[in-house]
């Protein structure tokens, strides 16, 4: 049985980060095993404008805040969250 060697994740951008990157979502692939930090590095390197994003942004995986060393799997949704300012 073949094991996946890479993960394709849906990346989402919000608020100021969406303005910086000029889009609200993207899809990137990273070799497995991969972490949120690997996704961040891939996004910052590959997407025009994404170099302006922080190296260590607040992030969420599948609707839950996650640390940058958390694992990501194929099909996950990784969100870049600007500093939260609700209320």
């Amino acid at each position: 049985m073949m094991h996946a060697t890479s993960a394709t994740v849906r990346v989402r951008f919000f608020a100021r980060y969406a303005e910086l990157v000029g889009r609200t979502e993207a899809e990137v692939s990273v070799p497995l095993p991969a972490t949120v930090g690997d996704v961040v590095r891939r996004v910052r390197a590959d997407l025009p404008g994404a170099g302006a994003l922080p190296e260590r942004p607040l992030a969420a995986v599948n609707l839950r805040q996650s640390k940058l060393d958390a694992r990501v799997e194929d099909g996950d949704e990784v969100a870049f969250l600007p500093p939260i300012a609700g209320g």
Partner: protein
Amino acid sequence: MTYVTRQPLSIDQLVARVSSPACGGTCVFLGTVRNGPEEDGVSAIEYSAYEEMVEVEFGRLVADAAARWPDARIAVQHRLGTIPAGDASIGIAAAAPHRAEAFEACRFVIEEVKRRIPVWKKELRLDGTEVWVDPSGRPTGKPSHV
């Protein structure tokens, strides 16, 4: 009822959701769009959100509050979109058998919202400019003393 709305918030509806003969105290918190001396010319704030996460994170937050104050009844709703100065952006109602728990639960919810709920705000200013606001309430990019 969802945790997010684009309509003006109704205090009556929030209070109705928590009222109970078993509760002797109800605490209501409204967060409103401010245009004070510090803001110097804010006409409105445009609220945006990671809406799918807002819904699930509010569910977790309210569950956390229920674990701490098992007898409290809590309702919360965040308004999104463009909200004029003076209007409410968030409403919280917490009812409990005694006032101390009602105050504590209400305070817990708003403090956790500030920390956990992925909502962002952009000030729309009277001079036509727009400024993203950072979590401490200061516009992004302004000097730290402002």
